[in-house]
């Protein structure tokens, strides 16, 4: 049985730049900046003071509420400042700056594995929260929240997102190739703890290596399946993935957990396996550095908090002709104005584009061609929404389901008049919220 989600777009994948490059570890640098609000929800609260010495992996901030998570030091060193710093997205966020101790070995103090089998569900959720684990696909939504079910409800299916539908990015693909055992361990832990009946790993068919590797490994494992999915953007969006795997159109008023599904990114599950296996909290992540503006594209393990500049330096620096730098994928990523901002938990990639990709655009009026409607996976009318946004008629936009938009950018991608539809919609959402 094959399902698919309707609409969507087929951008050029450009994954060949990095797909065959094994994951490398970047060396430690001198300075790390850790924004306290790098996950969705309430910011974390610092538990260290300026001048204090910290160990690598030591907790430096605690969750600021239930929908919030902890933060750990990526290096052994000294807290130099706790003050607002420029974060991805351009705004200033309260951040902890840590300078690495040049004489420290940066070796992790080995911890015994955590006996996750004997944990209750509450304890398990608490562990995940205090390990600072979030969705590593880009949204950085605290993982433990997805596992906390209202009374009387239960997760039946664990849906693992290995779609990696953003062009250029290959970090999840490499992870599935290089650490299938860790991924399956993470799946086993979460599946067991939540009491899910079945786990399904959805992978787009442009990653045959990952599909084969995982299939070979799960032969013996009960009730874990790999489901190949036809390549289409935005396959990795939660509701689209559920549609593609189960053929079920999740009502807009419901969350996946309301129908007993928990959706997890592959990297998050590996993070969970690593945490329970060696006590390693989330202090590093895998990113793809790619695009025509990067001298040596790569897949890297990067400590959270590493300045962008250092990561790019490791990759041979930016080419002269670089026009724009993006954090995340090319469809939903954030443009970067300064190379001094840090890698955060939600950073899945750094892309540098030259003229070739970052062509300057000339916006024409909407010719009502309908391409944006055919692209929108949420079946909205982006043309109409864009028009209303330009006229600042935000109230009318609600009737056109403004809030259903997931900001995937498929409409902007498709628009032949190069109207920045998703940008208009995003602004309208923000402004109508403020009123």
């Amino acid at each position, binding site marked *: 049985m094959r399902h698919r989600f309707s609409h969507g*777009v087929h*951008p*050029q994948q450009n994954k060949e730049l990095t797909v065959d490059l094994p994951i490398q570890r970047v060396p430690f640098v001198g300075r790390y900046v850790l924004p306290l609000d790098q996950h969705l929800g309430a910011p974390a609260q610092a538990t260290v003071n300026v001048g204090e010495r910290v160990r690598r992996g030591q907790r430096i901030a605690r969750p600021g509420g239930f929908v919030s998570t902890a933060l750990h030091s990526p290096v052994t060193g000294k807290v130099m400042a706790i003050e607002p710093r420029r974060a991805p997205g*351009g705004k200033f966020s309260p951040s902890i700056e840590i300078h690495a101790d040049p004489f420290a070995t940066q070796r992790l103090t080995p911890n015994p594995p955590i006996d996750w089998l004997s944990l209750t569900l509450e304890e398990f959720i608490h562990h995940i929260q205090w390990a600072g684990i979030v969705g590593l696909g880009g949204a950085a939504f605290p993982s433990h929240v997805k596992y906390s079910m209202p009374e009387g409800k239960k997760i039946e299916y664990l849906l693992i997102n290995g779609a990696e539908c953003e*062009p250029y990015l290959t970090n999840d693909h490499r992870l599935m190739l290089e650490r299938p055992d860790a991924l399956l361990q993470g799946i086993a832990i979460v599946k067991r703890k939540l009491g899910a009946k079945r786990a399904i790993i959805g992978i787009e068919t442009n990653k045959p290596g990952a599909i084969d590797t995982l299939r070979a490994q799960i032969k013996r494992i009960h009730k874990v399946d790999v489901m190949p999915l036809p390549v289409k953007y935005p396959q990795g969006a939660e509701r689209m993935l559920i549609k593609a795997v189960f053929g079920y*159109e999740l*009502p*807009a*008023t*419901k969350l996946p957990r309301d129908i007993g599904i928990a959706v997890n990114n592959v990297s998050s599950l590996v993070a969970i396996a690593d945490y329970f296996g060696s006590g390693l909290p989330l202090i590093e992540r895998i990113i793809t550095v790619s695009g025509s503006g990067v001298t040596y594209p790569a897949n890297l393990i990067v400590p959270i908090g590493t300045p962008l500049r250092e990561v790019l330096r490791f990759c041979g620096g930016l080419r*002269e*002709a*670089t*026009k*724009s*730098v*993006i954090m995340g994928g*090319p*469809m*939903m990523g954030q*443009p*970067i*104005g*300064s190379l001094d901002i840090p890698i955060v938990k939600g950073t899945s990639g750094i892309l540098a*584009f030259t003229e070739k*990709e*970052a*062509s*300057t*655009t*000339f916006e*024409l*009026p*909407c*010719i*009502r*061609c*309908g*391409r944006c*409607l*055919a692209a929108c*996976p*949420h*079946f*909205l*009318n982006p043309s*109409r929404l864009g028009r209303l946004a330009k006229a600042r008629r935000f109230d009318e936009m609600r009737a*056109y*389901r403004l809030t*259903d938009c997931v900001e995937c*950018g498929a409409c*902007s*991608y498709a628009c*032949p*008049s*190069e109207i*920045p539809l*998703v*940008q208009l919609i*995003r602004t309208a959402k923000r402004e109508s919220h403020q009123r």
Partner: protein
Amino acid sequence: MKRSDPRLIVRPAPFLKSAMTTQQAMLDVLYALIPVIGVSLWCFGLGAILVLAATVIGALLTERLFSPASQRIPLRMDVSTLVTGLLLGVTLPPALPLWMAFVGGAAAIGLGKLVWGGLGQNLFNPALVGRAFLMAAFPTAMTTWTPYQGPEGLFTVYSSNLAVPLMNSAFDGVTAATPLALIKFQHETPPLYPLLMGNIPGSLGETSGLLILAGGVYLLLRQVIDWRILMGLLGSVAILSGSLYLLDSAHYPNPLTALLSGGLLFGAVFMATDPVTSPITPKGALFFGVGVGFLVVLIRGFGGYPEGVMYAILLMNAATPLIERITQPRAFGRGGDT
């Protein structure tokens, strides 16, 4: 700071863009039109080309002179105005005085587009607005059709082409009845083959069904036009005129003739499918196509004109906002409640 970073342009995601641009879509329409224009040169000679040039100049000049600076598109990018001029020109009789053609081009852009607020804002198809304007202003000239000339007439310039503006002048003596006029007023069924090839009396380019269809296929493949409009239109004409033919084959043309004659194919491929003036919603597009087809059969069969495509499309243009409102897509995960 040591060496300065490259100056980064900060603009919002997405950073990828599909290959199709509005300009490219207009160019595709242009490419699809070229064979049709070629055949009009073949059939009606140089005069035909002069008429086209006049409408295009009229359109471009009006756009350049009267469009507000805020919405002006650089000339080299403005394929849209060129296409409007050509589309209008192709629907005109080959012997039309050039000054009238020029006025038509100006009316198409002025009344059909600029007064509405420019590209993308107009309710009615601009080329058809220009044609409707000419029909109202110069009914005789607009319904005087010249016969097929063939290669001997390649360099023919009709004397009426060169008529002095606003003076009453005689039209070329040899006029010919279009196939639809034959059916309507003389109940004669014209042979099909010339309809396909184009050697029939008619307006400049609406004569060769085969080349128009080829253009249509190209535009469909490039996804520049919506198949729902095209299929809805052709399908409903075929079914409706087929039913009429079955009822009374003496009065009504057989469905194939109905499809191939007059401006129907041309209107279906190049006019009804204009994205600006047809519904943006998929369901609406189908509805629109069927509506145009229905009105064409209605006007041709029961109205006073032998030809009904222009009015059918203009009427459905007017209905487009309404159609759109009732065919808004239902959002994902929102069941039946629209």
